[in-house]
């Protein structure tokens, strides 16, 4: 069964304290991996797409990396406004060539204290 596991479930940081969030996946064939940010009561907001192992993407204080089994979201010098739940999702290859659906992890709830 295709699975996406995120760790830790929750993370508290002080403003400026850098850290990383992990997303590990066991899927039959990966088409791509997505990172989203979700604020309470809101829809997922797109951050990054990663297609192949070794790929990296950056946006402001966030940097996403991908290996064959996991992805990391690195947060450098976070600010209180970075507080949110960060979701990882994968899109999978199937026998028909590809699946449209995203399979999500449970997310990491990040709190950045001033």
């Amino acid at each position, binding site marked *: 069964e295709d699975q996406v596991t995120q760790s830790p479930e929750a993370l508290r940081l002080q403003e400026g304290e850098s850290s990383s969030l992990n997303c590990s996946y066991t899927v039959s064939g990966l088409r791509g991996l997505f990172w989203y940010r979700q604020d309470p009561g809101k829809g997922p907001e797109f951050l990054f797409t990663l297609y192949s192992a070794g790929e990296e993407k950056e946006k402001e204080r966030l940097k996403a990396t991908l290996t064959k089994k996991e992805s990391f979201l690195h947060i450098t010098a976070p600010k209180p406004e970075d507080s949110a739940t960060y979701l990882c999702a994968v899109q999978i290859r199937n026998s028909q060539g590809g699946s449209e*659906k995203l399979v999500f992890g449970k997310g990491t709830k990040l709190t950045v204290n001033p």
Partner: protein
Amino acid sequence: EPEVTQTPSHQVTQMGQEVILRCVPISNHLYFYWYRQILGQKVEFLVSFYNNEISEKSEIFDDQFSVERPDGSNFTLKIRSTKLEDSAMYFCASSPPRGRPLETQYFGPGTRLLVL
């Protein structure tokens, strides 16, 4: 910046009633999706829709669910006879025409459905 919109933002209904959740995808997008998120749980795929037909659906998407694109702008999810366990946040998403290996799915703000 174009965005996916959803109405209503909140819906309260009685068990057994029919509900229709509405979405306006981003205007040049051709692929449409519904997902749901039960409180405290993962976002789960329900259905994808392309070229006026369902392209993929999950085992959650049983006969009580249906989707429709009644005109050029709206995309709806109908739940015929709601159950208590249908209470969740329902998200609509859309993605642009294919032209790359993968296209990003952009999500709406959600409709919070509460079945009493």
